């Protein structure tokens, strides 16, 4: 299916959520790592250099927006998909303007996520 595996990093304080999602993504052959806070995410990014980060907006400690800024400052080539429980459309806009590639509202169908991942791969010319 893919020649170069996509490295994903899921960042959310709801561990139950990202662990299940990660397992499903692994079933779909995605190399997936987890982080339950913004700080942990920054460490993993340093080590793993993921292609795409799925980032929760609201987290205790360093919030989603702050993490997004730090990721973009460190490596602008990393694509970030902002994830939020809020239905407020302004959240998506502000995330995009801060450098996020896309945004999704919880709960979402995993197909939508994989489609977005594929879109990003296409844009990057990986497929």
């Amino acid at each position, binding site marked *: 299916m893919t020649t170069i595996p996509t490295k994903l990093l899921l960042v959310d304080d709801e561990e139950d959520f990202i662990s*299940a999602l990660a397992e499903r993504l692994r*079933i779909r052959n995605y190399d997936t790592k987890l982080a339950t806070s913004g700080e942990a995410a920054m460490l993993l990014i340093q080590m793993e250099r993921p292609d795409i980060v799925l980032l929760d907006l609201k987290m205790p400690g360093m919030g989603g927006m702050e993490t997004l800024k730090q990721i973009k400052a460190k490596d602008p080539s990393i694509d970030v998909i902002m994830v939020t429980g809020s*239905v407020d459309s302004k959240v998506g806009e502000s995330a995009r303007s801060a450098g996020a590639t896309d945004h999704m509202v919880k*709960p979402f169908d995993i197909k939508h996520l994989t489609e977005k991942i594929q879109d990003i791969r296409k844009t990057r010319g990986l497929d």
Partner: protein
Amino acid sequence: MAFWSKIRPQFWNAQVYLSGEQQNVSYYRRIWKVAVVGITTVAVLPLVAMTFMNMNQYQNALKAELISPVTRLVSNTKRTVAHFLHERRSALRFIVEAKGFNSECSVENLSRIFIRLKNSYGGFVDLGVIDSHGVQRAYVGPYSLTGKNYHEQPWFREVIVKGVYISDVFGGFRDIPHFVIAVKQDHDDGGFSILRATIDTDRFNALISALDLRPLSDAFLINRRGILQTPSRFHGNTLEKINFPVPPITTATQVQEVKDDQERPLIRGYAYIEETPFIFVVLKQEKELMMGVAKLRRNLGLFLALSVALILLVILGAATHLVNRIYEADLTRTSAQHKIEHTNKMASIGRLAAGVAHEINNPLAIINEKGGLLKDLLSLSSELPPKDKLIGLVDSIIYSVERCSVITHRLLGFARHIDVRAETIDISQFIEEVLGFIGKEAQYRNIAVNMDVAENIPLVKSDRGRLQQVFLNVVNNAFAAVDDGGRIDISVKIESVDKISVTITDNGSGIPAENLRTVFEPFFSTKGEKGTGLGLSITYGLVQKLGGNISVESEVGKGTSFRITLPVKL
């Protein structure tokens, strides 16, 4: 009762809600009663007082008016009677002083004098001459009294001493009331003779009946022992004794108010007629004279009753109308307040909705992923996954569903209607619940929320829904005031036996002193488009309604502190 229910004003049984508790049902009734009694007192009392004062004054004036005609009547009659007697006495004195009159006067001579006397002055019945021994020497009249000796009689001795004598009225032989006038003539030789005339009382009677008295009035002559000298209407006939004491001797005419034997008020006028034994008495029934007063009193009474009735009617109408207006105004105000409260509630719900959606979406996302994974495991892999793993996934789903239901239940509690309902509330647990709504936000924004609850805080009886709204509003404000990483302190204390206080202090931007006075006023807002300006004013109203109080202290740059006191019992 059917009639009463028809005319009963709206407010009569209306209840009023002031500080959250049901005030007694008689609130409007009491206003109404105070108004009616107050206005009636100031309107009717002076009227009644004035009517009675006028009546009294009029009565006194009338009485004074009554006395003077009686005085006049008595004086005039006294003068007439005195004049009548004086005239006859003078005539007799004239005769005895005429030249040649003595005890030896012949019967022919005497009868000539008698006829002249009768022609000139009426009333003479007989005429006799008595010598110094008391023997009647000559007599002209209907009886044969010549030779009768009067020596032993008291009048004979009196005429010797005084020179003149006027007798009481007596029946005499013929039983016709008459009286005697006698005059003495001293002779040059030291002897004397007496001329004695009998006069009937018809002239007296005619004099008195000419007074033309009212039907219930009486006028008569009495002597000093109280024997009637002329007939009376109500006090007996001539020579009978009167049934009241003889009035005391005076020289002037007297008019007094007295009571008769049946305790009816009388006006009594009397005068002693000088040099005679007679007293002229006039008795008038006051009732008869005051007939005008009775009529006036009746008319005034009627007028007073009508006026009072009219005034009462107007007062009742006006008071009822006014209190009804107050009641309606209160109703309007209450319903407006309810509407505003509702609007505020809706706004808070709107604010909450975003937060709640986020809160619910998180567990939903977990359910979604766990369920999805379950399906993936069952459909994508060839062998059945281990049982433990499946149970773990399902447990996680059930746990997330519980998380959702906690949130929805909280919302249900908040959405209950506005009726005041007292529930027993553990205030610290209650505040924890309220914080549950916003706990996530505190977490995300790194806001430290500290609870400091004093020991032995009593359970509070209050309205849960309203209290929730109060604390949500205040805590929301505190959250809006602090920056991320700020701090909110909530302390619960006992104020007195029946009061507790909750103080919510933030270390946010603070409220400038010029705004501090107006924060509880409606439509005061510093949030611009974002706020309705109603939050704190409604909070204030709600706290009042719950019988409590809310106050604020603030310092710019240091933070704001809202203090809510609540009664332990609603």
